[in-house]
């Protein structure tokens, strides 16, 4: 008996590498949050396509309809396509969802005290309000710029 080094036989439950997140609603929500990155990727590729089309345009010796055809195609054929519009709506919704979930988490990474001598932390809602204001402000600025340069 004393010669045996160990009677252990630990059991390692199998790890579900692909489906672990399905077991718990908290994880499902987390994966959806992370999944919004796919739509963000789509938005990035879409904008890159636009820039590429712009680059393809030939504006020498002067701006002509034939010269800016690639960009026109982008604006009028590609972006106007109902599938693309639907995808862009999805992009908006998922990115809003992402913004909401991230803003909810951000206060955890901000730990400042009310003032120099206080032991009270800045309340979570302050960070959240600041972030939402920032988001709204940025949106207003971008939309205004788009409208004014129409």
């Amino acid at each position, binding site marked *: *008996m*004393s010669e*045996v*080094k*160990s*009677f*252990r*036989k630990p059991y390692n439950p199998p790890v579900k590498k692909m489906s672990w997140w399905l077991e718990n609603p908290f994880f499902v929500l987390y994966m959806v949050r992370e999944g919004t990155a796919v739509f963000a990727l789509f938005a990035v590729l879409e904008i890159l396509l636009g820039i590429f089309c712009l680059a393809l345009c030939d504006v020498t010796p002067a701006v002509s309809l034939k010269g800016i055809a690639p960009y026109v195609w982008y604006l009028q054929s590609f972006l106007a396509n109902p599938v693309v519009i639907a995808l862009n709506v999805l992009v908006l919704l998922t990115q809003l969802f992402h913004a909401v979930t991230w803003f909810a988490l951000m206060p955890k990474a901000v730990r400042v005290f009310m003032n120099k001598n206080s032991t009270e932390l800045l309340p979570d809602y302050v960070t959240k309000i600041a972030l939402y204001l920032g988001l709204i402000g940025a949106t207003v600025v971008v939309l205004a710029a788009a409208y004014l340069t129409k």
Partner: protein
Amino acid sequence: MEKYQADVAIVGAGGTGLRAAIAVAQADPKLRVALISKVYPMRSHTVAAEGGAAGVVRDDDSYQKHFEDTVAGGDWLCEQDVVEKFVHQAPEELYQLEHWGCPWSRKPNGDVNVRRFGGMKVPRTWFAADKSGFHMLHTLYQTSVQFPSIQRFDEHFVLDLLVEDGECRGVVCYDLQNGVFRQINAKTVFLATGGAGRCYLFNTNGGIVTGDGMALAYRHGVPLRDMEFVQYHPTGLLGCGLLMTEGCRGEGGVLYNKDGYRYLQDYGLGPETPVGSPKNKYMELGPRDRLSQAFWNESKKGRTFKYPLGEAVHLDLTHLGEKYLHERLPLICELAMTYSGVDPVKAPVPVRPVVHYTMGGIETDGNTATRMPGLYAGGECASVGIHGANRLGSNSLVETIVFGKIGGDAMAEYAHNHKDFDSAELTRQAEAAEKRALDLFDVKGTESMSKIRNEMGQSMEEGVGIYREEESMQKTIDTLKGLQKRIVNVGLTDRGRVFNTEWMNLIELGYTLDVAQCMVHSAINRKESRGSHQRLDGPNGAYKQRDDENFLKHSLAFKLEGADEPRIELSDVKITTFQPAKRVYGAEAEAAEAAKKAKEAK
């Protein structure tokens, strides 16, 4: 069996064990320390202590005052020279912990704060909110990690001491995870295994507080001293018995009986102090034994609340306000809410006395050495001589670090003066312990371990409770004797070697039963009332009083070879400067103090 050589083997990795290990490591990094514990260090019951640790820091305080509070609190059964040493070393150990990162609560200027505590004349209790034990233990554990000379044996259950030529030379233990036995030879062994509150049915203690070290020392002929002195903490939650720290009362909490009356003023602790303005040594800030005894008397008079789970009185903290309560006493707010469904901010909490601390333990001198060379003991499992017949709150957390350090230093010196031990005899003893443990699997009996455990607990509550009588103590003696016969017939269903808790619990129950016997035999032998040992009997009620003439002595419980009961002897108490006097609190104490000053002025 695998064999290890260590310079110092420490059994128990709570406050005392960890402090001792660090002390040895700092004294000499070349000394090999084996730190053995049946649980991971941060699970040790030190973690549950709440109130604080006492050490003189204020200008209006003095070592003399702390000394006098402690000796009077112990009803003069303290080894006064040891108390002197203790109060002197307490503050530096507390500062040491602070340097190591302990989050002691602070004053606005950044210095350590202290609070009032029961039986202390001047506030001197350092506290970390109401989780002082938790923070002390985690600080010690995390600090210990930086010393490579400390080798830990986590989840190793000690089965026996190895003793040769009358000297302690190691331990044999069981690795619960791997399921194998290990022999650890050592020049010195330090027992820091905690108290034995689990002898009783209702207690504030965790499941691991089973008196292991006490039983091991006892079985090898080292006496257990003052075992009859068991502390009932006055404010345990009704039902589960979890601790509502004395800090509640230090911060101003008050106790009411069912008539809304602050009954403590009827028991020599008055006059009544205004709610929210506690006064040291008055009312709710009296010593623990007096408060528990007051409850017992109120219960006899029918003045306690009667709940489905039992009787209780009310601990009222509502006047302290939410902000203050959540800052100073967050843990007890959580406990009361979680386990009793009561929010202390809004309503009084039902509480009752519950077994909490073992004043007695393995007899040691002021340096934690037992009468067996090579064997040391410290912390709650030891009786080093500072608590006497009743411990003051916040003296035991600081006891762990003071005597952890003293013990560690003493053992480092002993180790430097001795060579390694190893012999055929030690190996034989280790193998014998292994066989005894494995033989338990072959017992074909039908006794139930849980029944024996519950009967022991119930019997101790009835016979060796807050107030004791010859008849009920004798009944407990007989019950325990019967249980000792029955425990050898417990058959185990679990024959596994890995984490066999049924088997471990059975061996633990054996330890607890031995310690319980020492408690009741010491109690029936002490024919007086002192501190937490109060009797209602005696010819013409003689035992209701303190009897300094015959019993200003320690009780020593010895294991007799072949006998199934301990033999009780008495030993002298070292009195240096503080002669025994009447133990007074409240207004009586002030009057006595004034009289003393007047006498000195003459």
